């Protein structure tokens, strides 16, 4: 266990449970630092890591900010805010990052039925999987798009500019969707743009939701 200030090294770590340890027969050290690493015991065999990939390279994901603040919303004045999503996936065969929201942007007042609906874009055809153009300032709602910054990892549906989707909504039983994916590679980065636009009828107040990104290595 370690951090910036200290490192604790265990003298010996027994990687098997007490019961299994009694039956434990052999741990094969890796021949090289390429995977997989195998360990065996009575009645079980464990392999970790991928064939021919370095085992000391962890799978990493980063998000530039834990908050996207839209500030004050005014009708027909779209607000776009961004966060950067990056990955380091040299130790895996491929990966994807799935995304979902817990609910639409919802008023923080006691009346939780007031919300900014998820966008369906200009022609009312974009959703959680399919994207569509959203440039009309009279089209209201909350949505997102993905732009590649380093390498190519954004979903193909964002290839055209101003094409948006809306986040899968867990409260509506939507399935989480991949926002970026790719093969094993280092330092991929994408910019996620959140866009919100309200109508003049939208009730005054603060609106909030939670958006979750989960990095998943391929199997």
């Amino acid at each position, binding site marked *: *266990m*370690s951090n*910036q200030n200290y490192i604790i090294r265990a003298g010996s*770590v027994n*990687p*098997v*449970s007490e*019961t*299994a340890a009694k039956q434990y027969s052999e741990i094969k050290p890796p021949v090289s630092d390429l*995977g*997989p690493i195998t360990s065996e015991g009575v*009645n*079980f065999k*464990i*392999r*970790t*890591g991928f064939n*021919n990939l370095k085992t*000391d390279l*962890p*799978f*990493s*994901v*980063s*998000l530039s*900010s*834990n*908050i*996207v*603040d*839209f500030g004050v*919303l005014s009708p027909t004045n779209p607000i776009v805010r961004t966060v950067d999503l990056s990955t380091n996936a040299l*130790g895996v*065969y*491929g990966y*994807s990052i799935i995304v979902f*929201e817990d609910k639409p942007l919802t008023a923080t007042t006691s009346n939780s039925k007031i919300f900014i609906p998820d966008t369906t874009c200009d022609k009312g055809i974009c959703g959680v999987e399919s994207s569509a153009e959203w440039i009309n300032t009279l089209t209201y709602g909350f949505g997102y798009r993905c732009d590649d910054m380093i*390498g190519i*990892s954004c979903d193909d549906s964002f290839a055209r500019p101003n094409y948006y989707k809306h986040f899968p909504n867990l409260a509506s039983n939507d*399935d989480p969707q991949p926002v970026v994916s*790719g*093969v*094993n*590679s280092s330092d991929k980065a994408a910019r996620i743009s*959140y866009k*919100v636009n309200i109508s003049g009828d939208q009730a005054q107040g*603060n*609106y*909030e*939701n*939670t*958006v*979750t*990104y*989960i*990095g*998943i*290595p*391929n*199997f």
Partner: protein
Amino acid sequence: MKIPLPISVYQTFSLMHKVLSIKYLQNIKLLSFFILTALYLLLNTAQVHAQELSLSVNPPITVINAISPTNTTSIISIKNNSDTQVALQIQIKPFKAKGENGELEYPNEALPILKNIQITDDNTPVESITLGPKQEKNLSLNIDISQDLTTSDYYFSVMFVSTNHASVGSNSSINQLGIATNVLLSVGQKEIPKAILQEFSTGIFFEAGPVPFTVRLKNTGDHIIEPTGEIIVKNMFGQSIGKLNLKEVNILTDSTRAIPSELEDNPSSFKQPVALLKEGFLLGLYSATLNLSLSDEGPIFVRTIYFFAFPFQSIIIIVIIAIIIIMVKNKIKQYANKDRISV
């Protein structure tokens, strides 16, 4: 004539005192207002600063073959790469294959062996952990494979998801970041693998390389398979011009996977992986033979396909160059003959 009387010193001081007192009182009121406002803001809103979130996990995959009864333990290392403390919730979710490239999806189903799985930190079961800045922690994944556990495969992800309950106090989205590591658990005696080679194909005709081969294998057995194989490409004279080692990928039970070549990491073929023969110049009839072994004990699939290559573009260029050369030669000859005649 009336001469205005000068204001006495006392009067002056008295007036100044009054003015200053009013200003002082006003200042006090103003100051009180600011202090109270600041206190109100401090007490009624959480102090929120935008923070980076960054997580790493290792290993990204753990494959366990076990025969009941036994207990298995493997290590999962999770690291907070950011400069701030992060609280992580641990979730265990079953998954299944999505598509044919190793991507996965999470169905709305419960994992039947969830009660047999435990994540422990120093032998203490945990459902959440807190990591300090740059802190790394080794957790144990313990699976109790009891005798009553059905002989089957169980595929699940162990997820670490940050929790963020901060309220900004304005219109905002709160972001959470998670990371997963996958576990492929096979319980029961290893059987002879069963699979169907659904496709081994390429185009019929190519002008030039590279040549993509599609290899799709469906696992119809009860346990995960990890086939090994190669594609050997020969020209019409029987000479080997290329050997493609196939990537050793995991194929989940009752799923199909497209198998790429070992060094094939082309982002464009991410969704539809292919084995790529990177030979540029090709001419004539070629054969490609796939040897695919489902395990060390077999069975082995052997299949041969053919394709034809003719570099039309190159040939046309060569022919044009040849024609130009012949024309130039003829012209030179004609001039030479004219010279001789004139002489």
